[in-house]
């Protein structure tokens, strides 16, 4: 759980991308909010992988199938195309090797859904540009020295990485500061500037 939980407006966006009864692996399940939402509203066959023991125990106590594990190390144990969807929500930036993790997601799932905070958002840019300080926002409440988020990227960066990995972007959504979707007709640069969070549906 690397981002302030109250701000998880992306959860519903993610849930809307998943059809009922799908097999879903949620990587970085946190306290199980997304899995529970998916089980309750979409009757999915859901599994989770979560780094923090506290989160895992909470999930299992809530009746969710979650194991303790590290996205950087433990994805290799999952079989190819074992899931319809693999979700990585607000966790990519906290992994040691985002490229490898994304590659694994595309291997394990028929589709991957990735959501992440956009480091290209204007507030972030402004904080660096005007104050010369690493940004601390509602969405990213950590100081540079204690943040678990070690690999930030912008929406443009992420699109480049998808290209590099041969992944097709089937759908992309950017959410502004109010959690509202940014119009589809807008160009990438606009998304990259005003999108506070991004949700991508990928396939390879």
């Amino acid at each position, binding site marked *: 759980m690397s981002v302030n939980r109250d701000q998880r407006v992306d959860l519903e966006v993610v849930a809307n991308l998943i059809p009922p009864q799908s097999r879903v692996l949620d990587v970085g399940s946190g306290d199980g909010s997304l899995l529970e939402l998916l089980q309750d509203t979409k009757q999915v*066959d859901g599994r989770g992988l979560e780094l923090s*023991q506290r989160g*895992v*125990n909470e999930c*299992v*106590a809530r*009746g*969710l199938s979650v194991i303790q594990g590290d996205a950087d190390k433990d994805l290799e*144990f999952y079989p190819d195309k*074992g899931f319809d969807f693999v979700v990585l929500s607000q966790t990519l930036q906290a992994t040691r090797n985002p490229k490898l993790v994304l590659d694994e997601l595309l291997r394990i799932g028929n589709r991957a859904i990735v959501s992440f905070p956009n480091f290209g958002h204007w507030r972030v840019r402004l904080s660096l540009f005007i104050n010369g300080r690493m940004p601390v926002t509602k969405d990213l409440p950590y100081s540079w020295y204690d943040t678990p988020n070690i690999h930030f990227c912008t929406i443009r960066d992420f699109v480049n990485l998808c290209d590099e990995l041969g992944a097709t972007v089937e759908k992309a959504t950017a959410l502004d500061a109010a959690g509202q979707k940014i119009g589809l007709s807008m160009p990438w640069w606009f998304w990259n500037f005003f999108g506070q969070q991004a949700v991508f549906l990928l396939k390879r």
Partner: protein
Amino acid sequence: MAVLRARKTNNEADQPSSPVLRFGSDKPLKLDAGTLLSPFQIAYQTYGTLNDARSNAILVCHALTGDQHVASTNPVTGKPGWWEVLIGPGKIIDTNRFFVICSNVIGGCLGSTGPASTNPATGKPYGLDLPIITIRDMVRAQQMLIDHFGIEKLFCVLGGSMGGMQVLEWASSYPERVFSALPIATGARHSSQNIAFHEVGRQAVMADPDWHGGKYFEHGKRPEKGLAVARMAAHITYLSEAALHRKFGRNLQDREALTFGFDADFQIESYLRHQGMTFVDRFDANSYLYMTRSMDYFDLAADHGGRLADAFAGTKTRFCLVSFTSDWLFPTEESRSIVHALNAAGASVSFVEIETDRGHDAFLLDEPELFAAINGFIGSAARARGLSA
């Protein structure tokens, strides 16, 4: 008193005070050792009521020195059942809701056929004439018991340590008969270090002159000293250094100063001696040899061409594994490797590691986080199985 209890243990072997199911020569037990065990018997306890659909049965598998008296007073020791903190009316495993079955394993000494049981061929206790019993043999026998109850599919099979090994064997051998599996503080194989500790225990028993090559009953003796030492050594492995230090430190036992002798100066010595002494009152030495051997031989991956995932290929069973941070007998890594195998097999699996300093024995104790995990897992499995609350 000790003699009385010893005799009682011995009686329990043939005529247990719990229900017992006897299989005649028409239903032999096929053993991994390559022979048939016949006749044989399984002593068991049940709690609660089997529903009409026979879908609410939970099988509890006991550990090395456990028995069928999981949730009722032990007839030998007079103590409460060994898992009463977890199982009973209104407990986490609610016997008002579930039908709980627990049987003494084959090779045990409280009523299922074991080395202390009378060998019908000789009229004397089997002793070492009983073939080596494996975890799979135990499970095969349990399966015959489940058949007796007319239960097609168990709602849950759970157990810790050696009980956990049986759970894994159940899920692997009879996947279609196990709806959910809850192996706790266990491994898919016994590690070299664990075999080493067991060997120390066995050698302690065998080094006792009263063991008589396993025929001690015929000599009117029991290798109590050897078995007590075995238990003392084993007991250390069930705890943790932190827990020992917290409980005993270097505290002296009923004395102000060191005695400069070999009495139990330290509380920990006195505690271990007590553990050893009370154990021999309730357990048969040969059975201890068989039980430890069954765990040593357990290697689920080896039974499936070296690939643990193949032991669970295509499984529909829902799994929840639990380990404890301070358990050095079955460290978390053992559970994790099972989890990885289950992942590779595409199984539904949960895995929690509980933070505690109480070591391996934590699974038998009142651990709120353990209970929360079991509660969550059982609850969601019951919903999936369509069992009403």
